[in-house]
């Protein structure tokens, strides 16, 4: 199917809309109420374009402007998005939207990534002809993790449609009508479900904001890397937004097969793992800070001395790369390997999103590398020494570890396993601080990049230990 947009001949897919075709081909048409995966609303009117249809052997332009978001492509269709009419129309729509919009960009979290703000610049809507009083609406605390500045709302209804069709929570209502329409929750029923923060992403302006991000950072200071959420085995694709080595925010990254445009609030707040417990930043033997070579020597000696009585306990939060190195070491010395499993949570099902019961990111990675035989820690009797890789965000070490003669622990957290029998403590990194990959519940391996750079090098220590134990000089 051929469609011509602004003179450019494009191959269109049956059933797609003019807007989708344009966006796919990098032709910019402004839009606010459209959002992929949500029903078409057609109400913001910013995507109005001129459309002509092939009628026999001539093109007939439709008398009225049409919404690109609600018009399906047709063979031979002509679309004009750059005429003077369209330019004036876009400017007018933005002017309308700004009439009762507060000029609080300087204190609005959305500034810098606000569609309305961007369009106001793009379409040069920089002077107001509006000299009347604005309508003022309030700020509302609508959920544990989100706020609603209804004053900034542009009535695109993305949030309402999300609440109906994606979360199924039906948490939002509209008060009154016309220009006095106002978004609200009903009867103080707050939006606390685990998809609530998607409303913040969806909102094209700063009406919905995240409490955890509120006033923390201006959007234009943020840098972004693509990563994978470590919150569970779903493997949601994410963006890590960071600045100066601090992660401020996680946002979902579109992946049609895994998470679509969404992610859950648990995953979204996993970056707080970086900050919610004291971090172990140096390697220690007992209370003495040691450099890497000494740590490697000591660990290697312990293993060689006593390998029949050594048990390695790995974590489903570790990356594939780390697990492979451990596997090499364990295989070489025929060490017993167990897993520090996390208890399953409850599977949480929304109409268009499911949070799996397994709330660890890489259990399938362990299964793949160590085969199915890997077992949970049940009985540590008979082992003198444990090499414990504990990357769990919560402190889950139990008293049974006290019975072990000697523990060597790799962990990111300083409050982890402070037992007297811990001889060596190696500082570990969280997934936001390293490159690596996880294998999700559907056996898809996905890699991620770090947002935070550290001096911590537990992988090198692992590699060094293996070199010392095996005598190999190069390890791949």
């Amino acid at each position, binding site marked *: 199917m051929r469609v011509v947009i602004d003179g450019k001949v494009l191959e269109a897919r049956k059933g797609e809309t003019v807007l989708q075709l344009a966006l796919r081909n990098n032709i910019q048409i402004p839009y606010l109420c459209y959002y992929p995966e949500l029903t078409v609303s057609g109400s913001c009117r910013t995507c109005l374009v001129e459309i002509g249809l092939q009628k026999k052997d001539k093109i007939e332009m439709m008398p009225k402007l049409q919404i690109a978001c609600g018009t399906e492509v047709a063979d031979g269709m002509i679309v004009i998005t750059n005429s003077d009419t369209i330019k004036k129309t876009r400017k007018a729509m933005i002017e309308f939207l700004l009439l009762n919009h507060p000029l609080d960009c300087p204190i609005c979290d959305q500034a810098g990534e606000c569609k309305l703000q961007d369009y106001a610049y793009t379409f040069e809507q920089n002077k107001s002809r509006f000299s009347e009083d604005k309508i003022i609406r309030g700020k509302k605390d609508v959920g544990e993790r989100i706020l609603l500045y209804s004053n900034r709302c542009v009535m695109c209804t993305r949030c309402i449609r999300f609440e109906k069709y994606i979360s199924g929570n*039906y948490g939002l209502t*509209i008060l009154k*009508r016309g220009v006095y329409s106002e978004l609200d929750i009903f009867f103080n029923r707050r939006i606390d479900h685990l998809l609530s923060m998607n409303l913040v992403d969806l909102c094209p302006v700063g009406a919905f904001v995240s409490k955890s991000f509120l006033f923390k950072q201006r959007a234009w200071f943020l840098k972004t890397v693509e990563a994978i959420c470590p919150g569970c085995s779903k493997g949601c694709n994410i963006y890590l937004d960071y600045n100066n080595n601090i992660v401020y925010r996680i946002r979902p990254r579109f992946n049609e097969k895994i998470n679509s445009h969404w992610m859950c609030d648990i995953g979204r707040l996993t970056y707080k793992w970086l900050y919610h417990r004291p971090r172990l930043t140096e390697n220690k033997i007992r209370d003495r800070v040691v450099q890497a070579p000494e740590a490697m020597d000591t660990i290697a000696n312990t293993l060689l001395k006593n390998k029949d009585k050594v048990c390695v306990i790995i974590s489903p939060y570790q990356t594939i790369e780390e697990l492979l190195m451990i596997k090499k070491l364990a295989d070489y010395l025929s060490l017993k390997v167990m897993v520090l499993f996390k208890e399953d949570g409850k599977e949480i099902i929304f109409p268009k999103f499911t949070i799996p019961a397994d709330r660890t990111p890489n259990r399938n990675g362990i299964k793949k590398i160590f085969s199915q035989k890997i077992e949970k820690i049940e009985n540590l009797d008979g082992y003198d020494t444990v090499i414990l890789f504990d990357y769990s965000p919560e402190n889950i070490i139990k008293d049974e570890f006290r019975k072990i003669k000697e523990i060597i622990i790799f962990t990111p957290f300083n409050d982890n396993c402070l037992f007297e029998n811990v001889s060596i403590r190696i500082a570990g990194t969280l997934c936001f601080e390293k490159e690596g990959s996880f294998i999700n519940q559907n056996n898809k391996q996905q890699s991620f990049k770090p947002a935070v750079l550290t001096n911590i090098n537990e992988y090198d220590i692992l590699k060094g230990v293996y070199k010392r134990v095996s005598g190999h000089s190069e390890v791949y």
Partner: protein
Amino acid sequence: MSILRDEDKDRIQGFCSIFPEKRSALLMILHYLQDNYSYVSDEIILELSEVLNIPATEMHNTFQFYTMLKKKKQGKYVIEVCATLSCSLMGSDHIIDYLENRLGIKSGETTQDGKFTLLKVECLGNCGKAPVMQINGKFYEELNENKIDKILKEIEDND
């Protein structure tokens, strides 16, 4: 505590049975509830949501749209004076002034005794008899000061 009585619930189900989709009955139900409870409170919407098994926000969203559906307690007699063009050309502003003076309230308010609520409304669709008003849904036409006195007196007498 339940606000809706069993007979209300029966009526509600009766309204629903008229339509292929029960949600259609909503305006009928809301009119009925307003007639019986003066206005539709959030608590009523909440109960209705359970009776109909429709999310409360869906119903509240609809309810909020319509100006005839009252969001707070109304006087026993709701006086709605048309203020749109044809009535305005025939002096509806004076009618509203007169009623405000007579009742001692501004439009939008209810008298202290809870008897009268005075509202300025848009076109009531009876322009040929301008100026017009409705009291509890009944039309009063070709209004003037004398007529209003008579109407109010009649209400007071029969109350």
